[in-house]
C-alpha cells in the first residue's frame, strides 16, 4: 500500500467517522450532571437484594458475573501466552543469578533499603489481604487486592536480591494459584447448577449488610479472582525478570547483583 493510498484511506475514514463521533459526543450528558439511570437502579435494589454495600463488587461478581468470568479467562490466556513466549530454558531452575553486564559496577544494597523492604513488604501484603477480604464492604476486591499482593512479593526482590526472591517465589505454586483461581470461579458458576439453580446464581446465605461475610457466593468468586490475579501477576514479574538472566550459568562465580 503506497503512502498516498494510506492518506486517502485515512481521510475517507475520518470523513465518515468524525461526524458520527461528534454527534455521539454532543449527545453525552453534561460532565458531573447526574447519576445514570442504571446506577440509580443498582443503588436502589442491590442492598436489598444482595446484602452488599460495595455496588461495584455486586455488579462484578453477581449481576454481571458472567462478564467477570470472561475477563478471568482473558487474564489466564494472556499470562499463558506470555509464559509460552518468554520461557525458554530459563525459569526452570531457582538458584540462578541475575545477569550482570560486564564493566557495570555492582552496587550493594544499602541496609536502609533492606530494612524498609522488610517493614513495608509484610504491611503491603496485609493491606492486599484486607482489600481482598473486604470486597463486599469497602472499595476494592479480588483484582485490586491481588495486584497489591503481587507487588508485595516484589519487595522481596528489592530487599533480598534476585536469589532470595527466587527462593521465595516458586513458579509451580504460581501456576497452581492462577489455574486454581480460574477453576474456582468457573466452579462458582457450575456448582449452583447442580442444585437446580441457574448458572452463577447466588445460592449461599447472603449474610447481613455491611458485615465482612456478606454477599454469599460473591466472596468465593472474589477469592478465586484474587488467587488468579496474584498468581498471574507474580508469574508475569517472574517471566520478565527471567529475561534479565542468562540462559546458561555464567562461568565465573560472583555475588548476585542487587
Amino acid at each position, binding site marked *: 500500500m503506497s503512502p498516498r493510498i494510506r492518506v486517502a484511506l485515512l481521510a475517507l475514514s475520518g470523513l465518515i467517522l468524525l461526524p458520527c463521533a461528534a454527534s455521539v459526543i454532543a449527545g453525552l450528558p453534561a460532565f458531573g450532571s447526574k447519576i445514570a439511570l442504571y446506577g440509580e437502579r443498582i443503588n436502589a435494589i442491590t442492598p436489598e437484594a444482595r446484602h452488599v454495600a460495595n455496588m461495584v463488587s455486586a455488579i462484578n461478581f453477581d449481576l454481571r458475573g458472567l462478564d467477570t468470568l470472561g475477563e478471568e479467562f482473558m487474564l489466564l490466556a494472556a499470562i499463558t501466552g506470555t509464559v509460552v513466549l518468554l520461557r525458554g530454558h530459563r525459569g526452570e531452575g531457582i538458584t540462578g543469578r541475575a545477569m550482570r*553486564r560486564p564493566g557495570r559496577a555492582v552496587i550493594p544494597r544499602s541496609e536502609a533499603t533492606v530494612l524498609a523492604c522488610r517493614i513495608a513488604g509484610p504491611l503491603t501484603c496485609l493491606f492486599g489481604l484486607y482489600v481482598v477480604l473486604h470486597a463486599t464492604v469497602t*472499595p*476494592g476486591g479480588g483484582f485490586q487486592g491481588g*495486584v*497489591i499482593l503481587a507487588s508485595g512479593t516484589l519487595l522481596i526482590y528489592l530487599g533480598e536480591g534476585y536469589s532470595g526472591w527466587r527462593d521465595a517465589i516458586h513458579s509451580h505454586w504460581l501456576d497452581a494459584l492462577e489455574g486454581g483461581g480460574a477453576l474456582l470461579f468457573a466452579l462458582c458458576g457450575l456448582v449452583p447448577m447442580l442444585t437446580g439453580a441457574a448458572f452463577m446464581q447466588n445460592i449461599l446465605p447472603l449474610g447481613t449488610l455491611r458485615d465482612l461475610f456478606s454477599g454469599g457466593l460473591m466472596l468465593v468468586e472474589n477469592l478465586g479472582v484474587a488467587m488468579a490475579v496474584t498468581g498471574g501477576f507474580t508469574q508475569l514479574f517472574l517471566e*520478565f*525478570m527471567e*529475561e*534479565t538472566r542468562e540462559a546458561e550459568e555464567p562461568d565465573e562465580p560472583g555475588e548476585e547483583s542487587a
Partner: protein
Amino acid sequence: MSVILPLLFLLTAISGSAVVLVRDPIRQVFAIAINGLVLTILFDALQAPDVALSELAVGSAAVPLLFLVALMAVRTQPPGAEP
C-alpha cells in the same frame, strides 16, 4: 471541589504530555508512574475509588515495573551482539 477538579485535569494533561515528550525510556517509565498517580487522585476525586485502586496498583506499580525490567533486559545485551 470547584478548584480541585480543574487543577487535576491540568495535572493530567501535563503529566500525560510529559510521558510523550520525555525521550529517555527510563525517565519515561517514571513519567508513566506519575501519570498513573495523578489519574488515581483524579478518579478518587470523581468518586470512583474502585477504579482509583486499580489504577494505583496497575498504572503506577505493576506496569512501570515491567517496563523497567524489560529495559534492564534490553540493556544487558552487549551492543551489536546477537541475543
